[in-house]
């Protein structure tokens, strides 16, 4: 090894020094002999000559000595690299095309890979993040629902597959007593949470078990960000108290900066056990979720079985309504990535296909060049180059080109990645962490070398087949254009066309889906609609009456503002996501089985909401003032729910919806109206069944006030802020956005994916066009003589066109057939990304096919023109 290293050093840069040193040494050697000869009495001139004779051939000695330094393989490798670089300089346009092709495809692949790596692969920034498991409960209908405190306690203490477990629940509380009231985000956690996530305090301490028990003194840990922004970054903050929703909590610690759990911002951590620990019912669901750290070697299945066994034992000892609930467990990395996974994998495959096209292009270009070099190779073989040596040289040349392409690609990837992060949707977890780090660099290097090897193999394979005598004798540039070479190049073109068709089809589908989603019937009128998201501090608005009173007054005040035509209240605005789902049943219908209770989203709205949002009423009536808090309880349902249960929305009226289904507690509501479906979860989301509580009968402190304005809703924003602050300055505005913003944001991801896939589709088309052009051009060049002869003996231009055109058409048709088959197969994969159209869309297939044909025709037109305009006389003369 050491010997090896010193050889490399010598080979690289000590070379010249060593050479000089060696001749000095030999010169000194000669001097010594000369001096001895003089001592023996020889005349100086003769003494020197005698010394030379005795020493031997100086140059030969130096050469032999140098061989001892050399590292033959390495030296030839360097030589091949030099040769490759010389080749690049010799044919700059060829090299430019190859290098640009590689740079584009390697750059795109590297950028997407860095996103995929960061979002899907990179271990979470917690100790043993790869063993973290997300825990919840599961029923026959829904999986991953919240865990009850009692169940969690039993899981935590009785399991034997987890090293540790922690529960957490989110909450929003109003911070008062430090300037204006602000809404803060809390995460309630068990004391084990901080061990599990490995976070350390920057100041003070974290929770201990005594903090985490019912009846403990209220304590709080602030995040570094909150400490800076809301607590003034005071180093003595530990021991002070903060008032959250009217309760005073003592600050015991501040977390170290840059700690992030899930994607949401958190201001304060509170002990969960203190708040929830007094719960005793096994069916008492809040919004508790849990994380567990699997023991090393334990599998997810083992863990699930383990927790299920605990659930079954609990069901025996303490029977309740949820005895059929089971444990839900899934790796944290997967849960974090969620549905981005499919999008990213589709993008990665698309960009991988682009790389294959690039590879095919480079292979066919190299093949064309190596055929032109057949004579050079034949000469090399003739004067004794070994086959292995030739192969190594050709491969090294390609890899040099690939390495240059890869390096450029890396630059490109850095730029692409920055753009991606700028335009990427904010809600993709860990997207912001994507960077050109070691794994990504390794990936780029690996694909560069792989492309170099793959593309380089084509000419090598060809070189092995060079027929010496023909190549030397023919001596024409077309020497060595065998049938095999043509077949190979044709295969490459067919593959390129097929892949391009697949990408064109996929990006077409996504573009079509985006258009469909943008044009989707929202079910309401999002224009000139402003949404003010409010959260009343519970300490100030304890009673339902106070909540009703507040929102009633605010609505009246806002309605009085000029430019505001209507004001309505809703808990979850369209496009703002859903408020949650729950079981229901219809009393007038047969009781569903335990496992067949249907689910529906729920929402809360006041009498004015449907009017203010301009939602169509399909049957019955709106809520009105007569639906009083103590009156008979009523609900409005959406069309989807109505059609799910009845053939006609009219039939729903007067029937009764039991919230919670037959097996759970919940109010019974009379259905008084049916409204249109709206895009609750987003424009491109499925329209789910929904029922609305009347705000008067189920007031909520968190509501969104929707304003219908006469003009631009942005102009009413100041008025909205003023009115909210005038009514009670302790009520914070959580957000103030137009409904169009709410809706538009739901398409962010779709736009992102569509843009990227569209780009890759375009890149594929460009590369394929270059590839088709290159191959046909070569085909024409190789047949120039044949064409010239045909023309000379009287062939018409049209028949030449037919000859060349037939060749091109055959390739295109075969490629399109294969591409169509591939696209049809891949469509199943795209189903979850497609909206408003079917994934297996024949129209889109036709369109994609037509696009590819147009591109192929454009790319083929130049070579075909050349073929038909061959100057027969000149060509034959030259030959």
């Amino acid at each position, binding site marked *: 090894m*050491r*010997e090896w290293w010193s050889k490399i050093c010598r080979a690289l840069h000590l070379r010249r020094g060593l050479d000089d040193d060696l001749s000095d*040494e030999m010169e000194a050697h000669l001097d010594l002999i000369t001096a001895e000869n003089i001592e023996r009495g020889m005349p100086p001139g003769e003494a020197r000559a005698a010394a030379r004779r005795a*020493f031997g051939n100086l140059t030969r000695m130096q050469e032999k000595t140098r061989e001892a*330094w050399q590292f033959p393989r390495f030296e030839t490798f360097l030589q091949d690299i030099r040769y490759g670089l010389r080749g690049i300089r010799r044919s700059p346009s060829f090299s430019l095309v190859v290098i640009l092709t590689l740079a584009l495809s390697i750059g795109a692949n590297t950028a997407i890979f860095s996103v995929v790596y960061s979002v899907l692969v990179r271990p979470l920034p917690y100790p043993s993040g790869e063993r973290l498991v997300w825990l919840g409960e599961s029923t026959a209908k829904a999986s991953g629902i919240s865990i009850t405190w009692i169940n969690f306690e039993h899981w935590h203490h009785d399991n034997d597959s987890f090293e540790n477990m922690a529960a957490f629940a989110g909450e929003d509380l109003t911070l008062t007593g430090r300037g204006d009231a602000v809404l803060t985000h809390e995460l309630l956690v068990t004391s084990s949470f901080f061990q599990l996530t490995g976070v350390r305090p920057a100041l003070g301490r974290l929770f201990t078990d005594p903090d985490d028990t019912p009846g403990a003194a209220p304590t709080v840990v602030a995040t570094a960000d909150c400490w800076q922004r809301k607590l003034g970054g005071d180093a003595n903050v530990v021991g002070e108290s903060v008032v959250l929703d009217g309760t005073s909590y003592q600050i015991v610690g501040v977390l170290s900066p840059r700690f992030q759990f899930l994607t949401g911002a958190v201001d304060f951590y509170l002990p969960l056990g203190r708040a929830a620990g007094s719960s005793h019912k096994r069916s008492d669901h809040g919004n508790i979720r849990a994380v567990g750290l699997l023991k090393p070697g334990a599998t997810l299945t083992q863990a699930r079985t383990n927790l299920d066994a605990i659930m079954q034992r609990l069901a025996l000892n303490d029977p309740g309504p949820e005895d059929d609930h089971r444990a839900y467990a899934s790796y944290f990395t997967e849960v974090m990535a969620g549905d981005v996974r499919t999008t990213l994998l589709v993008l990665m495959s698309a960009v991988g296909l682009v790389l294959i096209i690039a590879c095919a292009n480079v292979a066919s270009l190299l093949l064309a060049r190596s055929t032109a070099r057949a004579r050079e190779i034949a000469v090399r073989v003739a004067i004794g180059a070994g086959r292995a040596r030739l192969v190594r040289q050709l491969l090294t040349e390609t890899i040099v080109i690939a390495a240059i392409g890869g390096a450029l690609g890396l630059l490109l990837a850095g730029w692409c990645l920055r753009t991606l992060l700028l335009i990427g949707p904010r809600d993709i977890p860990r997207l912001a962490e994507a960077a050109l780090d070691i794994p990504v660099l390794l990936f780029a290097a690996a694909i560069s070398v792989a492309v170099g090897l793959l593309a380089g193999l084509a000419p090598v394979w060809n070189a092995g087949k060079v027929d010496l005598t023909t190549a030397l004798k023919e001596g024409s540039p077309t020497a060595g254009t065998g049938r095999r070479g043509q077949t190979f190049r044709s295969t490459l073109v067919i593959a390129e066309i097929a892949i391009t068709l697949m990408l064109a089809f996929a990006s077409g589908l996504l573009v079509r889906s985006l258009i469909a989603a943008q044009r989707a019937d929202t079910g309401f009128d999002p224009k000139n609609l402003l949404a003010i998201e409010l959260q009343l501090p519970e300490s100030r608005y304890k009673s339902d009456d106070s909540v009703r009173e507040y929102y009633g007054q605010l609505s009246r005040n806002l309605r009085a503002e000029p430019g505001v035509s209507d004001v309505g209240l809703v808990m979850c605005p369209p496009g703002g996501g859903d408020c949650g789902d729950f079981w229901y049943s219809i009393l007038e219908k047969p009781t569903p089985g335990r496992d067949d209770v249907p689910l529906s989203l729920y929402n809360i709205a006041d009498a004015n909401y449907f009017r203010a949002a301009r939602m169509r009423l399909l049957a019955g009536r709106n809520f009105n003032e007569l639906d009083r808090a103590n009156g008979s309880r009523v609900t409005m349902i959406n069309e989807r729910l109505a059609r799910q249960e009845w053939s006609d929305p009219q039939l729903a009226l007067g029937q009764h919806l039991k919230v919670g289904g037959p097996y759970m507690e919940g109010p019974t509501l009379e259905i008084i109206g049916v409204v249109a479906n709206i895009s609750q979860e987003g424009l491109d989301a499925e329209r789910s069944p929904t029922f609305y509580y009347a705000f008067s009968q189920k007031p909520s402190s968190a509501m969104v006030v929707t304003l219908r304005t006469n003009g631009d809703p942005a102009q009413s924003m100041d008025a909205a802020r003023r009115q909210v602050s005038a009514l009670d300055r302790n009520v914070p505005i959580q957000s103030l956005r137009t409904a169009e913003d709410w809706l538009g944001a739901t398409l962010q991801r779709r736009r992102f994916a569509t843009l990227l896939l569209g780009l890759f589709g375009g890149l594929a088309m460009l590369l394929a066009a270059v590839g088709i052009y290159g191959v046909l051009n070569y085909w024409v060049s190789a047949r120039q003589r044949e064409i010239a002869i045909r023309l000379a003996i009287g062939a018409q231009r049209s028949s030449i066109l037919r000859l060349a055109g037939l060749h091109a058409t055959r390739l295109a048709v075969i490629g399109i057939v294969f591409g169509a088959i591939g696209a049809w197969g891949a469509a199943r994969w795209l189903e979850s990304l497609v909206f408003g159209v079917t994934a297996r869309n024949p129209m889109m297939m036709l369109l994609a096919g037509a696009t590819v044909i147009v591109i192929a025709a454009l790319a083929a037109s130049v070579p075909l023109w050349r073929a038909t305009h061959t100057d027969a006389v000149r060509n034959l003369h030259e030959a």
Partner: protein
Amino acid sequence: MSTVDDPRKALEFLQGTLEVLILRSLQSAPNHAYGISQFLEQQSEYEFLVDNGSLYPALQRLLQRRWITSQWKKSPNARRAKYYRLTPLGRKQLVAAKSKWMRFVEAMARVLAPQR
């Protein structure tokens, strides 16, 4: 052509012997290439004739293995020359090689000229 060895012709070095002999020649003191070849010729009573075309590459190999190091110095008669010196590693190597070669020589002798 005579099949009997011509005593007037110098012996050729067997594979690997020159390196050991160089190490041996540096055992007592550093020396330059010419000195080494002189030493080997004199010690072998001119049975070995050291060819510079073998000596220099052999020195390079020993340098690469870090068995010897080199340094430019003035010779006793005030001439500049490159002196080679044994490293501790080379010294260890010499001891090992020496015993190996001694065993080899004795074994060869026992086989070729058995003493009755």
